[in-house]
């Protein structure tokens, strides 16, 4: 049995910063744009070493998306950097028309997503972004689980042709994916189990791993799958696991509407109906607080996942 430990913690946004800097060295077509959040997005190293390929756009996110579309037209691979709220909701029409509909090879890199942004509160804690982005035709949506996976995903996106949304966050978080393979669109089965499947993305993968440990102590065998790509969804892996365990729990730092849970439920209801429980924010805005306190208050703790797993199992015929 694989055991994951949390010996080291780092923020996922730092994984993005390191990945982007590595890309700068690897690929001369990679360019970066930032809307006055250089430090928050950890883009300093890229700017320092590749100043001619870095564009400070100021607090003007709509323009940033258009610039990126234009740079992509000229053969560049632009990575835009700002908070997830300003990367999506604020500029949805710019992304829709100039990037998605126009099929531009732009990578929209979004930090500080979800409740774990913490003290800044609900104005900045976007919980609707996965839904908005996955609805756009042709948009790839990636939500990596830790620092290392964010680094690897950032690098992978440069060779993935087409518009993409990369969602990551602010707090230091356990690192546990080191050395694991990463392929866009291929979910990663972290822990094998037979009674229930926990499908999770982003920070919630670690919460699911903790929940699995509690469930194991109770004699329940849970399978943990890191669905780091929400779109295109790895239908094959999801169906195989649901077929094996017979019930599932989805876990995400997002509204219950529109996110990973929606995608998984849609897939299962069409191809293999089984009981589905969803761990997500239940149609409300967030608030200021410490990340772990917020996850607990809004029902996103490992203990909540355990309860949801037990409920899902009880619903099996």
């Amino acid at each position, binding site marked *: 049995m694989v055991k994951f430990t949390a010996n080291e913690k780092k923020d996922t946004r730092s994984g993005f910063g390191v990945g982007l800097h590595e890309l700068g060295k690897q690929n001369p077509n990679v360019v970066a744009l930032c809307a006055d959040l250089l430090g928050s997005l950890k883009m300093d190293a890229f700017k320092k070493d590749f100043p001619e390929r870095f*564009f400070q756009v100021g607090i003007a996110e709509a323009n940033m998306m*258009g610039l990126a*579309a*234009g740079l992509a037209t*000229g053969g*560049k691979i632009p990575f835009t950097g700002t908070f997830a709220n300003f990367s999506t909701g604020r500029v949805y029409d710019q992304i829709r028309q*100039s990037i998605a509909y126009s099929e531009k090879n732009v990578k929209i890199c979004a930090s500080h997503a979800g409740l774990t942004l913490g003290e800044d509160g609900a104005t900045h804690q976007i919980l609707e972004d996965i839904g908005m982005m996955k609805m756009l035709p042709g948009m790839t949506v990636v939500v990596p689980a830790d620092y290392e996976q964010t680094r690897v995903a950032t690098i992978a996106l440069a060779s993935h042709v087409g518009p993409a949304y990369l969602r990551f966050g602010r707090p230091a978080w356990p690192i546990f994916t080191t050395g694991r393979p990463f392929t866009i669109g291929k979910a990663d089965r972290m822990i094998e189990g037979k009674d229930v499947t926990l499908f999770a993305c982003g920070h919630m993968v670690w919460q699911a791993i903790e929940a699995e440990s509690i469930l194991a102590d109770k004699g329940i065998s849970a399978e943990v799958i890191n669905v780091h790509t929400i779109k295109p969804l790895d239908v094959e892996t999801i169906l195989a696991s649901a077929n094996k365990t017979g019930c599932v729990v989805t876990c995400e730092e997002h509204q219950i509407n529109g996110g990973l849970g929606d995608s998984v439920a849609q897939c299962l209801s069409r191809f293999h109906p089984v009981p589905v429980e969803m761990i997500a924010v239940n149609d409300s805005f967030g608030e200021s607080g410490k990340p772990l306190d917020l996850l607990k208050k809004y029902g996103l703790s490992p203990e909540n996942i355990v309860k949801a797993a037990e409920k899902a199992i009880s619903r099996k015929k």
Partner: protein
Amino acid sequence: MPTLDLPHLQKLCTQIRRDIVRQVYNCQSGHPGGSLGCTELFVALYFHLMKRNPGFNMEGKGEDLFFLSNGHISPAWYATLARAGYFDVKELATFRQINSRLQGHPATHEHLPGVRVASGSLGQGLSVAIGAALSKKLNKDPHTVYVLMGDGEQQEGQVWEASMFAAHHKVDNLIATIDYNGQQIDGPVDQVMSLKNLKAKWESFGWTVLECNGNNLPELITTMEKAKSLLGQGKPVLNLMKTVMGYGVDFMMGSHKWHGVAPNEEEFKKAMSQLEETMGDF
């Protein structure tokens, strides 16, 4: 730049105006007013000012590029692209109809040669053009990027974000033009949302601003050539181009009413009688 052949360019203007009215009449939908007003600019760009490579390549390396931000005047652009050889003029008959590459507003999705980004939702084209201009600088490509916006479009905040950026980052391989016809859907721009002193606004944002009568072809070409001569000096250049909406068809001229309305059969015939067929209708 080719030798200036004004009579030929004037003939193109007349034919493209016929093409515009015919496209809109055929599908009983579209935007004739702004299209007719900007015809001289399209002709000047595609048949005189722009360095264009044969065929169509999305990246457009080694040639001048044009972006249309006020995408609703697509009939003028489509007619120009067809007459310039990007696709067969017969395809103009499919404008705004199902299974056509000539979408109501320009799009890349159907792979229409000549179009590099979708436009229609206003305010976005200048940003895209600046991005393309940055790309040219990175590629050490000395060619120019052109973009056309509407005057009503100046009410969109993104235009000013982009304006600020281009001046700050010295994007001096870019010529923007504003179709300053003073009309928008709901009425005269001054009444809907006044732009006040638009020239002073752009100058204060750090652009070099030229002005001209956009329906006077020689004056327009001279102004655009002057704009070109001002490139490479650390500032983006704007042509504040005064036009008359609906120019060339007397009953469409100068009124916002023809912004987005198609002529009926009688009006179509009347319009056609005012525009000489110079190169064969589609």
